[in-house]
């Protein structure tokens, strides 16, 4: 896949991209969560 024969490499290549996309999805889904600034002390 992608010109790379060893699956241990192309899986890493794809996981990098998938990981970054997951971060974006998480950020969008949680866009307005956790707004409260105060915590009890």
């Amino acid at each position: 896949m992608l010109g790379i024969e060893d699956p241990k490499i192309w899986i890493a290549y794809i996981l990098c991209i998938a990981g970054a996309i997951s971060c974006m999805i998480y950020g969008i889904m949680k866009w307005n969560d956790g707004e409260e600034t105060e915590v009890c002390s």
Partner: protein
Amino acid sequence: MISTPVLGVIVLIYLMIIFYLGMLGYKKTKEIDDYMVAGRHINPYILALSYGATFISTSAIIGFGGAAGALGMGLLWLAVMNIIVGILIAFVFFGSRTRRMGLRLKAVTFPELLGRRFQSRFIQGFSGALIGIFMPLYAGIVLIGGARFVETTLGINYDVAVLLLTVIVAAYVITGGLIAVMYTDALQGVFMFIGMLVLLALTYVKLGGIAEAHQALTAMTPLVPDSLAAGGHMGWTAMPAFGSPIWWTLVSTLILGVGVGVLAQPQLAVRFMTVENDRALNRAVLVGGPFILMMTGVAFTVGSLSNAFFYNTEGLISVAVAKGNTDLIIPQYINSAMPETFVILFMLTLLAAAMSTLSSQYHTMGTSIGHDFYRQFIKRGEVGNTVNITRLGIATTILISVILAYILPISIIARATAIFFGLCAAAFLPMYAGALFWPRMTREGAIASLIVGTFASLFWLGFVHAKEAVPLGICKFIFGTDTLLTGTWTVVDPILVATPLAAVVAVAVSYMTKPTSTEHLKKCYGK
């Protein structure tokens, strides 16, 4: 070599903006919280870029990119770790709890957070001293990375390049504190993102497309030098042979050492305490993931692909072009393969990467010595001469970093980064994770874990892990043998031994000692 006047003007403009942001930081710094944790009001995007730009130094781009030039695309597993562990797990699981606990305990540094959670000035003082002693090694190699590129691009003497970088960064860190550091980081992060994006695109274009470029690299497998093939190298688009020395170096030192070690990096953890709510942390993840992909993902891919480029143009592999010094692979590739305008852009990218990491290191080293070690440990909380000691701490650690940048051997960048990250993982990670997630962890458990993690890691480096033990020569001097253990042990990284050991000790000692009072736990966890 590119036109020096053009580059000079661009660098000057860049530096003027940096100084402006440094001034802004200086003006906004009124209280100790401002200097230490940027007043806890940093914008999420600035946090994300600052975290990313600090995380990714020249060592990730030049050192690890160069390592990928030698070892191949197996390093992409480190990029996976950087994104999943370094961003997603760090922000989602560690970030929010660190922020809350830091606020509740009024902690302004990473050692202070740990010290207050476990009610121990020793933990704070020891952690501060550990950072003050070993972080200069990391700062030294970041300096090497930046200075090497300045040297090859501008033709400036390497020694002058080191001094220039140091003086500029020190100026705004000492005056503007963490606000100046994070503002400049964010700008530098933008430069880095653009620079790396263009680098990736141009590399694939130059090699005829994505799959074509990878295929060209795969076709070069028979060209792996005998010395590397004997160590387990199976080509630049394949993982090294399982269990071979190169496999162990790649997996245990580079991928795990740096991939996991990032969670316990003091200069990164302190950033979680700079925002006012969890929303900022969530939003930072959105920017952080793609940013790191563009940094390490691109550096490792391009580093590997440089082999295909050099083979097409010079009939040589990258390591041969760089005459064996892997730290020179990326600079040589940029200078040979990229158009002149891009060399300028990339010069700024690297300057930005070096400066953003250095500034945070100087800030962390200074506060570790001045605030954590001197004020809290030696003076037991009195303000005393903290400000001057912090400045003296910054100056001393900068001096040591510069000396190290002169004397460290070649091809050291990736390895020294891994040593520091590994040491942090062993010393801090079990204690830090326990502090955040495990109320049963006691002060005694934390202290035992800190000491065992630190010394087990140092012992393994000095007496077992051949790559450090042999050049250091301490083992040879004391015991008359290069390493105390032989065989595969000598290539297993300290992180794989010291971190689990420290974690086991933390759990065992905690269960053997009296639990922390409910009152204090309530203060830490808020319920």
